[in-house]
C-alpha cells in the first residue's frame, strides 16, 4: 500500500511540475500587470509545438533533412521565442487595455488562445504528435526502490524545482525583484522615482510567458504534443493560482507541487475523484481564506 501511495505521489509530483511552473508565470504576470493571462495554456502548448517543430519539421521545411535541433537547444531557444511572442502581444494589444476593467484583457487573452489553438489544429494532428527528441542521456528508467521511474521525469521534477527556486530568489531577494514588488504595490510612485515601469511591465509579461514556453518544452517528451494540451491544463492552473493566492510567487509554487501530490494520492483511494479534488480544495480555501493560502489579506 505504502509503495502504491509513493508511486502515485511521484506521478502526481510530475504533474505538479507543470502546475507549479505555469501558475508561477501566471502569478508573476498577475502580480505586476493585474492581468489574468488566459493565453498562458496556449503559450505552453505553443512552446511544446515549437520544440517539436525544431526537432522534426524545421529541417524538412528549409530543405536540410538531417537538421534536428535537439531538446537542450530547444530548452533555451523556445522560452526566448515564446517570451518574444509575449512581448509582442503586450506591446501591440494588451497595453491598450490596462485602463479598462480586467475582464477586457481576460477576453483578449482568451481570444489569443482560440487563435493559437485553431492555428495548430489546422496544421497538426488534433490528437497529438509524439516528441521524438528526448535526449539519449535521459532515456531509460531509475529504480527508486518503491517504483521504477523514467529518468526523464525525474529530471523534469528536479529541473522545475531549480527554476521555481531561481524565480522565487529573483523576485524576493534581488533588486530587480524589489522593483517588481514595489511596482505591484504602487506603480505610479515607482515611476516617479525614475524607474521605467512600462518597460518593466513588458519584460515581466515576456518573462512570464517565457516560463510557459519553458514548461511546454519540458512537457513535450512526457505528454504527446497536441493543440489542446494547454486548454486541458489551464483550468487546473487557475485553481492552483486561486488556492495559492492570486499573485503570490511562493503560493503558486508550493500549491502547484502540493496539488499535484494530492491529485496523485487521491488516485490511490478513489480514482474518479482525482480530477475534481483540486476544485473541491479550491472551494474550501475560498470559504476559509478568500485571499488564498499565501495571499495577503487586504
Amino acid at each position, binding site marked *: 500500500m505504502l509503495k502504491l501511495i509513493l508511486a502515485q505521489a511521484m506521478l502526481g509530483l510530475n504533474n505538479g511540475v507543470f502546475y507549479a511552473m505555469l501558475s508561477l508565470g501566471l502569478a508573476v504576470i498577475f502580480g505586476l500587470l493585474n492581468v489574468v493571462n488566459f493565453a498562458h495554456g496556449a503559450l505552453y502548448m505553443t512552446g511544446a509545438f515549437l520544440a517539436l517543430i525544431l526537432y522534426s519539421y524545421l529541417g524538412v521545411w528549409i530543405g536540410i533533412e538531417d537538421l534536428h535541433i535537439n531538446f537542450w537547444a530547444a530548452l533555451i531557444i523556445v522560452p526566448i521565442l515564446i517570451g518574444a511572442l509575449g512581448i509582442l502581444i503586450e506591446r501591440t494589444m494588451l497595453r491598450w487595455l490596462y485602463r479598462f476593467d480586467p475582464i477586457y484583457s481576460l477576453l483578449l487573452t482568451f481570444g489569443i488562445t482560440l487563435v493559437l489553438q485553431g492555428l495548430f489544429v489546422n496544421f497538426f494532428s488534433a490528437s497529438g504528435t509524439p516528441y521524438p527528441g528526448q535526449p539519449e542521456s535521459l532515456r531509460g528508467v531509475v529504480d527508486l526502490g518503491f517504483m521504477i521511474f523514467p529518468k526523464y521525469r525525474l529530471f523534469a521534477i528536479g529541473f522545475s524545482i531549480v527554476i521555481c527556486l531561481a524565480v522565487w530568489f529573483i523576485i524576493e531577494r534581488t533588486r530587480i525583484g524589489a522593483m517588481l514588488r*514595489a511596482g505591484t504595490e504602487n506603480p505610479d510612485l515607482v515611476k*516617479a*522615482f525614475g524607474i521605467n515601469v512600462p518597460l518593466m511591465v513588458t519584460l515581466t509579461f515576456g518573462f512570464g510567458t517565457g516560463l510557459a514556453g519553458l514548461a511546454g518544452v519540458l512537457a513535450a517528451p512526457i505528454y504527446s504534443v497536441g493543440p489542446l494540451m494547454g486548454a486541458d491544463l489551464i483550468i487546473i492552473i487557475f485553481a492552483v493560482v486561486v488556492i495559492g493566492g492570486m499573485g503570490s510567487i511562493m503560493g503558486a509554487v508550493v500549491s502547484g507541487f502540493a496539488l499535484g501530490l494530492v491529485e496523485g494520492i487521491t488516485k490511490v483511494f478513489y480514482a474518479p475523484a482525482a480530477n475534481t479534488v483540486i476544485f473541491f480544495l479550491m472551494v474550501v480555501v475560498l470559504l476559509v481564506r478568500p485571499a488564498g493560502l499565501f495571499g495577503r489579506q487586504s
Partner: protein
Amino acid sequence: MSATAQPTPLLKITDLNAWYGESHVLHGIDLELGEGQLITLLGRNGSGRTTTLRAIMGMVDRRTGSISIRGEEFISKPAHRIAPLGGIGYCPEERGIFASLNVEENLLLPPTVGKDGMSLDEIYEMFPNLKEVRKRMGTLLSGGEQQMLAIARILRTGARLLLLDEITEGLAPVIVKALGDAISRLKKSGYTIVLVEQNFRFAAPRADRHYVIEHGKVVDRIEAAEVDAKMDRLNHYLSV
C-alpha cells in the same frame, strides 16, 4: 540667506493645469523658487497642494502649462524621466513605504538621480532608528520610522530638489521636532525644498516664502518677512 534676494529660479511653474480623468483639478498654478530656498504650499485639504506635487512628478492623467527646472522644460516628459533629469526627490502623502519590501530594500529602491547622494552609513547616522530595523518589512515600522525612511530614501538618490508632502501628519510632537531639525539641516546644506504642510508652526520658521492654494490656484504669496504682518490673512486661509 535673505528671502528677498531672487536668484535664477531652480523651479519655475507657470499656468500649470492638471486633470484626473475628466476632472480638472489644478487651474493655473504659478510659483517659483531659487536654489537653496524652501517654500511651503499652504491651504485646506483638497485645495490642490498634493496635486501640484503630483503634477510636477507626472503622476496626473494630463497636465498643461510649463514646469521649468534649471531652465529645462519638463511638462511633456514621461513620468519616469522626471526625477532623474530634474534631480528630484519626492516624498508622497502617506509616505509611500512599500509593504512587501524591507527597510533596506525601500531605501535602495529609487535609482540615483544626482552625484552626491548620501551613503547608507550617512543615512543611518542621520536616522539611527532605521539601522536597527533595517531588515524589517516596511509597514511594520512606526509612523515616525516610516516617515524617516521616506525621507532617507530620497536623500540617498542625490536629489537636490525635494518635494515633501505632509511629512508631519499624524506624528508625535517629539518626532515632528526631530523632522524639523532634519529639514533645517538639509536647508543649511543647500537643498531646495517644497513643503506641503498643514502644520504652519512647523513650516513657518524654515520657509523663505509661502504660497496659499485654493481651488487649484495660487491665491496669495507671502514672503517670510511679511508673515507677522499678514498673520490675520493666513489664519483666515487656513481656518477650517
